[in-house]
């Protein structure tokens, strides 16, 4: 029988043939966790009393959510992670290495991998055709011990995108358009399979923005076929691949949605939900206090290049805080080499260390009462940035940069 990409990736790991709806036990290729979820995973693992992990080279920890630590309680959690990792020979990407999902795609993920991640945005790696999904700490604890995991093979929604993105419109706008169509639970428990000429023309950096935000409509994972762009990326990272995975013609999709990229315009998600999507022209003029560029959604080199191209020779509006956090050490180094960091700092921006930064509401840019932030992050839930009395708008790096220059939400097409 013909298979979707999700069905294919699961079937290559097990001996019997399974399809959407079947429950299976699959061996996992990677178990990853960050400093917000790894400590609980470690405590749950200790309750198992097995004192053995399945494979120390397939488990990786990342300290990115509170990096560097703003409080002693969190510093102690970091110690717990480092001690556990040392005992079992597990690699820790410590403070400054970057965000779990970014470092994972740079250094680890390969097509066909099954990835169990204690973070909801684990689906980011799906742009490299890895079956990557977010789980809680207990699932991660059990996976660390046994090297396998129970899964329900998901139904798939195919998302077909054709056309050219117009000027001022980026992958983030496309992601918001898709979430707007599907709603915040429109893909619950399901896989998204992205395809179409627009996807084929996108860089890997842009593709990761799309797969990253799939969880915002509830998706379990989001997948793209391996193509030349993907192969080139993997080769450049020193991970050439043996096998390519493609969906079969005639595979059974639960539904299909179509997006004509030509029709898109710059979008924002207004407070307090990601599916509250509006054209930027509808909210233009709203004054902002903070503009944040970074995160696993939009903290990559391509994003920072867009920021620099708009900021060059301009200055952030007085009274507005522009915060920029490169998604990883690698992104940071490349941005330094290209002179991007200098442009941001000269324009009045503040560069934060690679990591999640203010997106998780813990440090480095917690909002005050009544403040408004426009951010490239993926969530704008009430209180997400540390204060329930603040408001968060989500937008592309171009829209956030243009807004930082003007001091109010601004259509990026108006700032040349």
């Amino acid at each position, binding site marked *: 029988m013909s298979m979707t990409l999700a069905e294919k990736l699961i079937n290559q790991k097990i001996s019997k043939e399974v399809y959407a709806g079947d429950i299976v036990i699959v061996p996992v290729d990677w178990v990853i966790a960050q400093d917000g979820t790894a400590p609980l995973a470690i405590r*749950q693992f200790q309750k198992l009393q097995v004192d053995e992990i399945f494979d120390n080279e397939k488990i990786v920890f990342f300290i990115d959510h509170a990096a560097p630590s703003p409080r002693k309680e969190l510093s102690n959690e970091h110690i717990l992670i480092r001690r556990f990792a040392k005992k079992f020979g597990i690699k820790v990407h410590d403070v400054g290495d970057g965000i779990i999902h970014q470092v994972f795609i740079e250094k680890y993920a390969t097509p066909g991998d099954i990835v169990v*991640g204690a973070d909801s945005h684990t689906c980011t790696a799906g742009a490299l055709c890895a079956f990557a999904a977010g789980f*809680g700490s*207990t*699932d991660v604890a*059990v996976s660390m011990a046994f090297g396998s995991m*129970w899964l329900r093979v998901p139904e798939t929604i195919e998302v077909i995108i054709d056309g050219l993105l117009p000027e001022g419109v980026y992958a983030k706008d496309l992601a918001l358009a898709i979430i707007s169509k599907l709603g915040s*639970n429109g893909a619950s428990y399901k896989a998204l399979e992205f395809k179409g000429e627009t996807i084929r023309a996108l860089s890997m950096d842009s593709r990761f923005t799309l797969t990253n935000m799939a969880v915002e409509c*509830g998706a379990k994972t989001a997948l793209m076929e391996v193509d030349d762009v993907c192969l080139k990326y993997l080769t450049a990272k020193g991970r050439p691949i043996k096998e390519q995975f493609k969906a079969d013609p005639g595979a059974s999709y639960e539904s299909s949605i179509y997006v004509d990229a030509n029709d898109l315009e710059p979008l924002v998600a207004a407070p307090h939900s990601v599916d509250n999507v509006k054209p930027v022209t509808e909210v233009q003029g709203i004054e902002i206090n903070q503009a944040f560029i970074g995160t696993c959604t939009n903290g990559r080199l391509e994003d920072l290049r867009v920021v620099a191209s708009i900021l060059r020779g301009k200055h952030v509006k007085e009274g507005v805080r522009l915060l920029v956090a490169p998604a990883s050490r690698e992104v940071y180094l490349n941005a330094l080499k290209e002179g991007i960091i200098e442009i941001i700092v000269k324009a009045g921006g503040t560069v934060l260390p690679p990591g999640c930064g203010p997106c998780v509401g813990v440090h480095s840019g917690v909002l005050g009462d009544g403040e408004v932030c426009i951010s490239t992050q993926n969530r704008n*839930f009430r209180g997400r940035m540390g204060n329930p009395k603040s408001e968060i708008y989500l937008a592309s790096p171009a829209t956030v940069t243009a807004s930082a220059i003007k001091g109010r939400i601004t259509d990026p097409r108006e700032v040349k």
Partner: protein
Amino acid sequence: MKIVGRAWRFGDNISTDDIIPGRFFHLRGNIKELARHTFEDLRPEFSKVVRPGDIIVAGKNFGIGSSREHAVHVLKALGISAIIAKSFSRIFFRNAINIGIPAIIADTSRIDEGDVLEVYLDEGIIIDTTKNLKISFKPLPQFIVNILEAGGLIKYVKRYGLNLVRSL
């Protein structure tokens, strides 16, 4: 399995940030302390007045957002005996089962705050004894009930190993 408890009513799209705000990140190592801030922004009094055995009743998409399992642990620490919603976010649903709190998908539109509910897990029936109302739901798959009966995934795996899960 039979569960009896008072209903606490919540709406649609309750996020894990609503259940336990990210600003209490530093308390994640101390679930008891963290639990004092459960639903703090939505219902500041919640952790003080909730009683062991109480049941969370919500609308669509309960538990959206971050994978933080702490959102389930704080509810467990406060003694919540079940969560009934029209639908759940995928990760939250799994986390609830793994920690041993039944997550039940049912039509909750007629249940009000304070109603006393009897939940019959195997039969797929909720009786709202306050309103004398019967609500049916699709019973959870047997292996999920097994995990709940063991007291969560850790206890289940300790008792049966992963081999039993493997034989699904």
